[in-house]
């Protein structure tokens, strides 16, 4: 057992590693991502925004590497591309979802540009890896402050637009008839998503951000449909994934992203199995049709 652990890179001093300042930063940044993802998560799932999350991750990639090429912080480039990309997707509306070929082509172009920018800039192999797979262990105090600002902004905006956004999400035609600005709310939602993706990319990277942005709220929704409980449960799942992921990363001296994604997946898989009986297929639900007069 001991030999196996040693060959897997077991770090007997992992507990003291957890106390290091870079670890404390990682916990703080990861926790902020979990909170922001949980707050927005209900809407991500209800609006079927999984596609947008995925797309924004790709769009942000050339932003981050382009920023390095220009000699500015990748976080700025990432954030700018994500927010502008969010507005563009919002203006295209649901059509962006339907034009699968066009969208896939544009996203491929974005990734290609990202690699190109990275190649043009020197000393950026680590940037590419960091953007694609995240690196919580490299988060600076300044970035944590930016993350905190994003999270507070996201919470404030949702506090104001939450209910109309919910109506616009579940019953867009009704919302429109009631005078709710459905289209504008869709863009506001996507810009918030852009901020969240900017944070999540830092934590787990563009390729893995699904695990923090979509999986926790989707898992929470299996357990409860009350918006506030979905948010709380989702935040809790995100915190567990980040906390356990970072701890495992310290134990085995390996990058935390894989562990975070792994824990998130495990919680999802267990929840899926445990709630199977509560979500029969639609056909079965119709067979159990009962009538009231």
């Amino acid at each position, binding site marked *: 057992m001991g030999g196996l652990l040693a060959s897997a890179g077991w770090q007997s001093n992992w507990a003291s590693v957890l106390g290091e300042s870079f670890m404390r930063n990682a916990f703080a940044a990861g926790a902020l991502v979990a909170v922001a993802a949980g707050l927005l998560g209900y809407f991500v799932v209800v609006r079927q925004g999984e596609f947008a999350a995925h797309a924004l991750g790709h769009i942000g990639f050339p932003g981050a590497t382009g920023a390095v090429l220009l000699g500015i912080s990748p976080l700025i480039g990432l954030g700018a591309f994500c927010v502008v990309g969010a507005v563009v997707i919002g203006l295209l509306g649901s059509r962006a979802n339907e034009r699968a070929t066009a969208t896939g082509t544009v996203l491929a172009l974005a990734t290609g540009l990202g690699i190109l920018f990275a190649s043009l800039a020197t000393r950026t192999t680590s940037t590419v890896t960091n953007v694609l797979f995240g690196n919580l262990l490299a988060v600076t105090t300044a970035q944590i402050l930016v993350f905190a600002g994003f999270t507070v902004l996201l919470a404030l905006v949702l506090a104001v637009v939450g209910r*109309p956004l*919910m109506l616009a999400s579940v019953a867009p035609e009704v919302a429109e*008839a009631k005078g709710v600005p459905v289209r504008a709310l869709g863009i506001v939602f996507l810009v918030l998503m852009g901020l969240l993706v900017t944070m999540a990319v830092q934590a787990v990277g563009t390729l893995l951000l699904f695990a923090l942005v979509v999986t926790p709220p989707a898992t929470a929704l299996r357990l409860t449909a009350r918006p506030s409980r979905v948010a709380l449960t989702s935040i809790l799942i995100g915190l567990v994934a980040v906390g356990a992921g970072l701890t495992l990363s310290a134990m085995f001296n390996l990058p935390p992203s894989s562990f975070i994604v792994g824990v998130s997946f495990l919680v999802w898989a267990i929840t899926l199995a445990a709630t199977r009986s509560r*979500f029969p297929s639609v056909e079965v639900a119709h067979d159990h*049709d009962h*009538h009231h007069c």
Partner: protein
Amino acid sequence: MTAPIELRDASVVLGDRTVWSHGTFELPEGSLTAVIGPNGSGKTTLLKMLLGLLPPSSGSVQVFDAPPERGNTRIGYVPQHYTDHVGNAVRCRDLVRLGVSGTRWGLRTRASERADADAALAAVGAADYADRRLSQLSGGQQQRVAIAQALVGRPDLLLLDEPLANLDLRNQREVVDLLGQLSAHGVTVMVVVHDLNPLLPHLDGAVYLLDGHAHYGPVAEVVDAELLTHLYGTQVKVVRTAQGDLFTRGA
């Protein structure tokens, strides 16, 4: 009291196509009116006009003595394919409550809205599944919840777009009986349908969109073999049973 809906020579143009014109009719308060016509004849367009989502290209449209305007709280609306967006994410209770709270910004909640939502769910016979999610319900149950959301603001006019689509006969009858009760309580109900038959027991009249014109007729006039044959472009017979029940069928 003037009519809840009044059209005077109204027409609607989408792009360069006149969808329909010469719309002149008024609907009596508390009536149950069907909107019928072939596919693409502008049935949904008529509802959108009444909701203020689409202005008439000419003529006048009045809803409760005023031009249609978005956000009219006297109107309840049940769009077609209502349940497509909801999926698995919302409890019926929360969905119905959004019918009154969903237009309000900020975090403030009103306790009365919870009671209103419960009352609306009870009124449509959906109280038993208030805590379930819409996707867990049958088509007929989903349609009731959709109607409850439209009713929760206590509208005087209810507009429904194809509420009977994809329902079996029993569920169709239950939804129609519910609409009949509402109109008996003074709610003016306008409902887009493909088939008049399920509505006939409660129907007062119909707006029929024919040859690019919007006509209105009381039920005795509309349920006419010649008119329906012309309307659908296929032979339709009107049959009256020995019990006095009226129905139409393709010949």
